[in-house]
């Protein structure tokens, strides 16, 4: 058991000061804007909860929230199982381990707008590798700047390309922590591959998978830079995810009140879903 020692607060103080400075001041600014109306000239009027009501009723918000939910759902459904499968089929020891880890981690360390630009170059219809293959070799008409479906597929494939490795690395870490004795015991019992996965590997990966899904949920729900650089939210509004729409309102139209109210609703949704998922996943641990 850990000792009760209020001295702990001294150790935490620097972290608290820095994070609070960065989190609370901007958060209060946002809260401040969200309840006020302005007509320019730095004059502000109390607007109560009006902006919140407007946002919650606005079709535009519903539409971008829907797109965002669909995007997050799709990348979770693809990335998590794919990550588990790749982690299961990776070598456990030998010279190929570092090669796999380094090449797979590479996309995680590329600046986000470079990823957008890279996929842009990759998918250009006539001079990009993918664009050329699709249009001139496979004969599929592919142009993601005009076709909403193509744009959606490209944005999702890009996210899978960018982030599946995170799931792989986490699952792999869970898998290598399983002692060999477990597998030997399973072999003696004549367990099938599926039972080994279901009763040995999956329970061991549960904790890392929880972390993986949480991180992927938070980051994909807040995604901005890569889809913005790749499609700019287009064609039309097809790939305008929540963050992209928010930045359009806040910095494009400079509607600070609605943008602030939208930020708070957005943050509340992220927080609530993360909390719900975390509570559900760890519910059985405490019993």
């Amino acid at each position, binding site marked *: 058991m850990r000792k009760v020692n209020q001295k702990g607060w001294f*150790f935490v103080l620097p972290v608290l000061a820095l994070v609070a400075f960065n989190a609370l001041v901007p958060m209060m600014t946002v809260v401040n804007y969200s309840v006020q109306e302005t007509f320019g000239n730095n004059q502000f009027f109390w607007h109560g909860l009006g902006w919140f009501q407007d946002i919650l009723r606005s079709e535009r918000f519903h539409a971008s929230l829907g797109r965002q939910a669909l995007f997050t759902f799709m990348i979770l459904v693809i990335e998590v199982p794919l990550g588990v499968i790749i982690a299961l089929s990776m070598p456990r020891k030998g010279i190929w381990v570092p090669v796999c880890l380094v090449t797979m981690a590479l996309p*995680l360390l590329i600046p986000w707008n*470079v990823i957008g630009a890279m996929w842009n170059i990759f998918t250009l219809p006539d*001079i990009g590798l993918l664009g050329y293959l699709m249009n001139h070799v496979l004969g599929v008409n592919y142009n993601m700047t005009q076709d909403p479906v193509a744009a959606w597929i490209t944005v999702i494939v890009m996210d899978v390309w960018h982030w599946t*490795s995170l799931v792989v690395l986490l699952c792999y870490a869970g898998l290598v922590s399983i002692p060999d004795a477990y597998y030997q015991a399973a072999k003696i019992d004549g367990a099938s591959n599926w039972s080994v996965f279901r009763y040995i590997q999956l329970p061991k990966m549960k904790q890392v998978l929880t972390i993986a899904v949480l991180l992927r949920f938070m980051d994909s729900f807040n995604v901005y830079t890569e889809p913005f650089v790749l499609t700019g939210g287009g064609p039309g509004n097809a790939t305008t995810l929540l963050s992209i729409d928010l930045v359009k309102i806040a910095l494009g139209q400079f509607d600070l009140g609605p943008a602030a109210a939208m930020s708070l609703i*957005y943050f509340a949704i*992220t927080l609530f879903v993360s909390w719900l998922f975390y509570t559900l996943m760890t519910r059985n641990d405490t019993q």
Partner: protein
Amino acid sequence: MKKRAIIPILYIVFLMLPIYWLVAMSFKTTQEILGGFSLFPRVWTLASYKTIFTDPTWYWGYINSIIYVTMNTVISVTVALPAAYAFSRYRFLGDKQLFFWLLTNRMAPAAVFALPFFQLYSAIGLFDTHIAVALAHCLFNIPLAVWILEGFMRGVPKELDETAFVDGYSFPRFFVQVFLPTIKAGVGVAAFFCFMFSWVELLLAKTLTAVYAKPIAATMTRTASSAGYELGLLAAAGTLTIIPGAIVIWFVRNYIAKGFALGRV
């Protein structure tokens, strides 16, 4: 056994294709890029790289990025160390709530904070400095560093602390001479993740800088939009942003996976 290897191989090929295309593009001449499709550069040219290494607005982008990323990594890990120690060793009023609150800061969309951050750092006169970006990135890097370090520290038996105190070590001496060396892998992993998230983040870095501390990624965006889409130059700049990350991964390759796995959610 052999059959299983096909999955990682296919995945790695999929990962490498866009990167290959970027690198190939960076060695082509502008005429070749716009003239049509070619799998390999027909004429190899270093012109794009030459532009980057001779134009101060380009190479200063790299220097700026490296400066604020290093600052952020040092600050995050330094303040996270004592905090992680407190979370792993002591119970104190509100410790659980505090830990959860720290983690919630990773959930706030950067887009939400962009404008308030700009106002805050302008108000305290740090706009367009490296330290402003370094401090702003602390918002999501400190919670992550605390989380990872706490996981590693919890794995160190308490007897180590107790024995050291019985032997007459003062707390600071114990922490630096005994405790730090035992968790140096954890420090490496935490530093790696801080480096990674600070290096790839652009929205806040771009919002908080104008000229003097402008990150490389922002320089690229400007070029792409203003100078009529110089693809070769863009590709060369992109290729160069991959290199620091690749070097860092190589050093911590044996610890990357462990870092998250040991952390507590």
